[in-house]
């Protein structure tokens, strides 16, 4: 089976546990609305990308299904500066779309370590895939469910990691939410 190629040895599983901890801690920061602390988890050269997804005929998926980074309009193609602005906006307390603040829950599952460079033992950058379910509930009865996949490039940062790249595949075509004010 054409699975991620790393040897599943002790070093691998140790790294994976570390990565899981990191992703859970990250979710916790977001759901407890500690947005500035969350920003600190992003590298200065962050790429935060969420394409739109089209209905195309069998065989055309690779070429046409997703909008292209660096070329098309997508849902997100942000850098760190923009993410910081998004946080800054929430903090003004005048960002009506998040006032009152949403109740958000990030569930992360299926964590896969796809790659580790230069090596699992002395990792600098690890490529991680995960599944997410983000539940957003606002005001009285507004309710949105976002489900999909993330592929992250995590860069070693002392005892922890920083997010250098996050590609988010949201499994929707017409967006089934009025807004995308949550972070994924």
């Amino acid at each position, binding site marked *: 089976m054409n699975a991620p190629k790393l040897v599943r040895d002790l070093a691998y599983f140790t790294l994976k546990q570390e990565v899981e901890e990191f992703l859970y801690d990250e979710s916790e920061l977001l759901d407890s609305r500690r947005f500035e602390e969350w920003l600190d988890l992003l590298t200065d050269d962050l790429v935060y990308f969420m394409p*739109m997804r089209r209905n195309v005929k069998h065989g055309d998926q690779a070429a046409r299904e997703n909008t292209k980074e660096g070329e098309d309009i997508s849902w997100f193609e942000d850098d760190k500066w923009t993410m910081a602005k998004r946080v800054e906006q929430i903090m003004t307390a005048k960002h009506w779309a998040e006032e009152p603040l949403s109740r958000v829950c990030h569930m992360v599952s299926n964590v896969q370590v796809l790659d580790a460079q230069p090596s699992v033992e002395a990792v600098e950058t690890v490529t991680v895939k995960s599944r997410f379910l983000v539940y957003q509930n606002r005001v009285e009865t507004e309710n949105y469910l976002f489900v999909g996949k993330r592929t992250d490039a995590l860069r070693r940062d002392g005892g922890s990691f920083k997010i250098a790249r996050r590609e988010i595949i949201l499994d929707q075509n*017409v967006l089934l*939410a009025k807004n995308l004010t949550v972070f994924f």
Partner: protein
Amino acid sequence: MDQPVYRDDFVDIENGTISREIFVNDGIYQKELETVFTRAWLLVGHESQIPNPGDYFTSRMGAESVILCRDFQNNIHVFLNTCTHRGMKVCLYDEGNTQTFTCPFHAWSFTPDGKLVGVPHEHELYSDVLDKSQWSLIEVPKIVNYKGSIWATWDENAPDFFEYLGGAKDHLDMALNALDGSDGGTEVFGGVHKWISPCNWKIPAENFCGDSYHNPSHISVDMIGIGPSAAKGEKGRRDNELADAQHIWISFPGGHGIHSALKPENNAYIESYKDNPIAEEYYRHCYEERQKALGDKARIVPFVGTIFPNMSFHGRQPRALCVWHPNGAGSTEIWRFFLVDKDAPKEVKDLLRRYYMRYSGPAGMTEQDDMENWNYATAGSLGVIARRHPFNYQQSVQKSKLNDPVPGLVSTQMTEENARQYYKCWAAYMNNQDWDRIMDHPVRHA
């Protein structure tokens, strides 16, 4: 029960009041689908989405799915996306290229010019009964390709597009022309924003027809600054190149409402892409080119506008064509096509893409706050008591002038006149009036 037929007193532009019913009433919504969206000109898409024969883009007119496609004679068509045999959608893709639209149900097939060309067992089962020519895909009677933007109407008696557009054309032109003024020098980026917003479709349409009064909606982005000079410390959500301009709000026959601006005589370019020297250079260059080309006319610069009933545009940043598709009395499916100069350098295109995405759409820091207001303005008007209290449209009543300083019914101060005229026109459709009455407007009496 909760669906009284439409009443004329719902729209009272003399006293500046409009009933909440027209934004929440299911019966009125149904009537709109039947009287407005079957007659008015609607934006369907952009030529650059279907460059080659056989290319198609699945779009929407009113609440219905349509196919925009290019046939093998290079003609552009708009068809209802439904099989004439038993209604199956003949296309479930967003876009692509095809020789025929073959129905998955019983395999009737249609060429991109709409003709019914394939009927299985035609001879045995349909001989001398089925007249294939009568069962082509259902096509719009009128279509126009205007500087790449494709428009269509279901009413064969509708006025031609340019007559329909009237004076609004000059302003829409500025969105569709290149920044240097060269004719229709724009294309749309790949990727069309599509999302569902819980508001009545007329609220955003009105919002773009000149509601500059809703600035407080955007206080958060204005406080922090998200524009193309923000990294250099500029606040506000947009470049400040209108700093020295006279804003003007203009209403036109057909219900179109425009918000543009008039630069002073000297018409100096104002630095507004400080974060990126290449963009700054490009904008300055285009600005000067445009001035050379247009001379004094270049003093008019675009901002936003709504072409009745549900198409709006952003002529300046973030340049885009928007459609507010009706999706139920309390729901709108919003589509947005983003425009850019065909010949702009890659750096400029990239900077604009990023700016568009952080400004517009469901992930747009600016538009998110618009939508919050559109949502709860609709929700706040649903109730029995609420419906007894009309909305207030008294802003700058009687303050507009005719054809001064530019053509149209013009206000040089913020006004709800564009909205008042928009709803006056909407009421004419609701009353099934003829096109003369629909196009009736103060400028016609000047």
